[in-house]
């Protein structure tokens, strides 16, 4: 199964569990300007009211052009995805999580291999989904496990782009130990602070400090399998 997963494309998650016990259909789309605009208009103000969130104060209207342009100039193959609920009858798509990736960076554990890097990842708080004007989502229909699904988007991209699941990220300091432990529970390894980052601007500008996390190939495959019931 592991070999097949490395050699065959892996579909993205297509449903998410809810409190009602029934899954809701979701779909993963390439991130577009209207997704980011709606997020900054409706979701970010709610996030910004919660000082405990790591993404408090984020500005996706700046991060997306910055990541796209920076990623292209540095030849890092940037790509953004939106996890959302689809409403085919009303032709509406409700963004529930945004993920901005760099598709080609040196892996943290094997510097001569390529990996995906999660630059920004954010999930919508429940309140943002239950208060949508003209399209509120009921509490028991809110998609759960959005964080895991968003992280799986990165792993799936890595598997489908021949990075074999290698995925890395930096756990925001504001998330503290809780965030680090959350990534560890998802199967990620924490890069020890004494280990050097691969050559590149980050080695100098944001050196290893015990908050870089990464998936090894076997760990990524295990994590990917865990979400198979949602594909």
């Amino acid at each position, binding site marked *: 199964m592991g070999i097949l997963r490395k050699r065959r494309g892996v579909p993205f998650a297509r449903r998410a569990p809810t409190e009602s016990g029934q899954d809701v259909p979701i779909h993963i789309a390439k991130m*577009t300007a209207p997704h980011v605009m709606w997020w900054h*208009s409706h979701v970010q103000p709610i996030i910004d009211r919660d000082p405990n969130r790591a993404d408090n104060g984020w500005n996706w*209207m700046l991060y997306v052009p910055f990541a796209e*342009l920076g990623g292209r*100039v540095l030849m890092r193959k940037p790509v953004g995805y939106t996890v959302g609920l689809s409403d085919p009858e009303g032709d509406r798509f409700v963004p529930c999580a945004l993920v901005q990736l760099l598709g080609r960076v040196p892996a943290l554990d094997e510097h001569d291999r390529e990996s995906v890097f999660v630059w920004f990842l954010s999930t919508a708080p429940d309140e943002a989904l239950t208060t949508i*004007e003209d399209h509120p989502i009921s509490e028991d229909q809110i998609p759960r496990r959005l964080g895991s699904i968003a992280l799986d988007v990165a792993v799936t991209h890595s598997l489908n782009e021949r990075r074999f699941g290698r995925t890395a990220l930096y756990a*925001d300091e504001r998330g503290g130990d809780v965030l680090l432990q959350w990534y560890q529970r998802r199967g990620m390894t924490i890069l020890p602070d004494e280990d050097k980052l691969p050559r590149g601007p980050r080695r100098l500008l944001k050196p290893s400090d015990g908050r870089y996390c990464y998936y090894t190939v076997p760990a990524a495959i295990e994590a990917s399998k865990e979400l198979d019931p949602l594909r």
Partner: protein
Amino acid sequence: MPTPTTAFADAAAEYGGVDPDDIEAVQRWFAEELPTLSIQIIEQVIRDLLAQDGAVSGREIIPVYPERAPLPSLGASPAVTTPLLAEDWRRLLRRALARLRR
């Protein structure tokens, strides 16, 4: 913590002459103006911003949220399809060859 918003505003002011307190103008500059500038300037802006990744800013910019942006349309947000990788191609080829042999 990502690069603070104030660093983006300072870059837009330095390289684009934008008012750093006007966050909407800063956002527009990054989305529309910066991509049209020379590669040297783009690289410099990127390096400046990467250098401030995780920095804590002493000042604050009040965010401006667009009012009542509409929900994105589903038609303009198609689901990403799974690419065909090596094993899939092999399977397709095997099927095609089997059909030809029949």
